């Protein structure tokens, strides 16, 4: 049986249908990415699976426990890293983990060793006894990651674990996530809108839009579904029809004077393609990305949607600073 099973899971707030029926089955040990724009229902879905949000209808179970009927068992089996930073900045890093260990009833004989192990995992051992308000954003994130792991949950939920961090720190956080998942052998469910990053980390992704999962598969499967590589050419008077008829071409589009060709196995067929077209001024090939998948399915670019709505994060960062002074 899968470690996470949902059946028609839905949540309605007043008249707004935040999540409109999600069917998912996530296997033990998977790193699963829930991708989608802001307001798509990612956080609500995770909230329901963590028993913070009560579903309006549908069912879900984690490690065999029903999220509505057995919330205490579910909570014991999940770790959560929230989108907002939720560390206690008056406590030290070590004390933050100690508080968590006590709340989850980790026996005192193994508590200290477990905390040390976790601090080591994210290279925070030498800062363990500093007050958390002196930590950088990346360090706080790392501490939150292992806090979620401390009680050895079966499933770790990460809601936008890299939001608000600079690209370098983001890359490191992903490395830590992969390392943690491997070390602890747990299932990770994460949400992110950084499509390129999700591609490198996730074994499988589901793209969610308007409260529904619109596609599901490995990053490769989803990208392959677009029909292969993109070849972009600048050509005088392109013979669009004859290009379209080639067996390895799955799509041709004229865009801004550039010919965009989608084709399979570009490395094999490109020479043949070029031999059939005269007056090629420039050629560029590009592997499809998950963002291309998103655009294809929704007609929108996820990155554009995101730039408008980061207010939430900025606000929480400001609040964080206020207490930290």
């Amino acid at each position, binding site marked *: 049986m899968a470690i996470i099973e949902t059946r028609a899971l839905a949540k309605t707030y007043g008249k707004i249908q935040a999540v409109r029926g999600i069917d998912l089955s996530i296997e033990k040990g998977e790193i699963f990415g829930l991708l989608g724009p802001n307001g798509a229902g990612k956080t609500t879905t995770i909230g329901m699976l*963590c*028993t*913070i949000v009560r579903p309006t209808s549908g069912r879900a179970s984690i490690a065999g426990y029903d999220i509505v009927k057995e919330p*205490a*068992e579910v*909570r*014991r089996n999940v770790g*959560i890293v*929230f989108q*907002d*930073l*939720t*560390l*206690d*900045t*008056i*406590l030290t890093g070590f*004390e933050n983990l100690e*508080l*968590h260990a*006590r*709340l*989850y*009833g980790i026996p005192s004989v193994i508590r200290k060793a477990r905390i040390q192990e976790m601090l080591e995992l994210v290279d925070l051992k030498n800062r363990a006894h500093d*007050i958390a308000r002196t930590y950088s954003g990346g360090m706080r994130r790392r501490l939150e990651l292992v*806090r979620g792991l401390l009680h050895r949950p079966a499933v770790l939920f990460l809601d936008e674990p890299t939001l608000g961090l600079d690209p370098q720190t983001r890359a490191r956080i992903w490395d830590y996530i992969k390392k943690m998942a491997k070390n602890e052998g747990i299932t990770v469910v994460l949400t992110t809108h950084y499509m390129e990053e999700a591609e490198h980390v996730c074994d499988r992704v589901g793209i969610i839009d308007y409260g529904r999962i619109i596609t599901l598969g490995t990053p490769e499967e989803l990208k392959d579904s677009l029909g292969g590589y993109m070849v972009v050419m600048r050509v005088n008077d392109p013979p669009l029809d004859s290009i379209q008829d080639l067996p390895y071409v799955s799509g041709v589009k004229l865009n801004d004077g550039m010919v965009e060709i989608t084709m399979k196995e570009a490395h094999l067929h490109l020479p043949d393609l070029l031999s059939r077209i005269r007056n090629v001024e420039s050629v560029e090939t590009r592997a499809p990305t998950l963002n291309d998948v998103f655009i294809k399915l929704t007609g929108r670019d996820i990155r554009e949607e995101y730039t408008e709505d980061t207010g939430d994060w900025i606000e*929480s960062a400001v*609040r*964080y600073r*206020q*207490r930290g002074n």
Partner: protein
Amino acid sequence: MHEGRFKKELQGIYAVWWREFKIFQREKSRVVASVVQPLLWLFLFGSGVGASFSVGGVSYRDYIYPGILSMSVLFGSVFFGLYIIWDRKIDVLKAILVAPVSRVSIFFGKVLGGCTDITIQVLILFIFSFLFPSINLWGIPLALLILLITSIALVSLGLAIGSLFESLEGFQLVSTFVVFPLFFLSGALFPVDDRLPVWLQGAVGLNPLTYTVDGVRYALLGLNTFPLYVDIGVIVFFAILMILMGSALFSRMK
């Protein structure tokens, strides 16, 4: 199985208390302020007014000592509870609320944490009691017990109100419309007897803090308006009511 769950809840209560106590240890400036402020009342206000008045054969400064202790418990407890608004605003509470510990246990952990802080503050204030010649030092344990029960009630009240508010503006409102009226109507600064206007007598009689002040004043000075059992009875009843209300509101908090 049932016993295991009970133990886990106790561990949860302890964990929340532990966090509050760590923070208390770290925020020493808060403790200093909470001890110095009552001392200012006693020595500046008490000595000033005491130059012209005495009550029941006791100097005014000594007379208000029990009242100022009660005030210190009132302010400290209610604001400790209200601090939950801030905890929620900066999201530290989120991580605690998703732990496999019931809301009621988190509530009790908070109440115990608040009472610990307040008890330590009161004990520090008791150290100064030798400066007040009329105080009966043997009455301190009884006074402490009354103040502790009051603190349980008032931290619960603070948490109850705090779980209703989402913004920090709540602080000012509660301060003006709850805390100060409770203080002024408690007889902390004046004797509760027939000389008071009737409307004031009524309001003072309805204020649970009046019975705290009366009980503590009886313990430390031997002066009282109501019998001790009435004082303790009212305070215990008030505490039970506030615990029930506080834990219910806290459990429903979003």
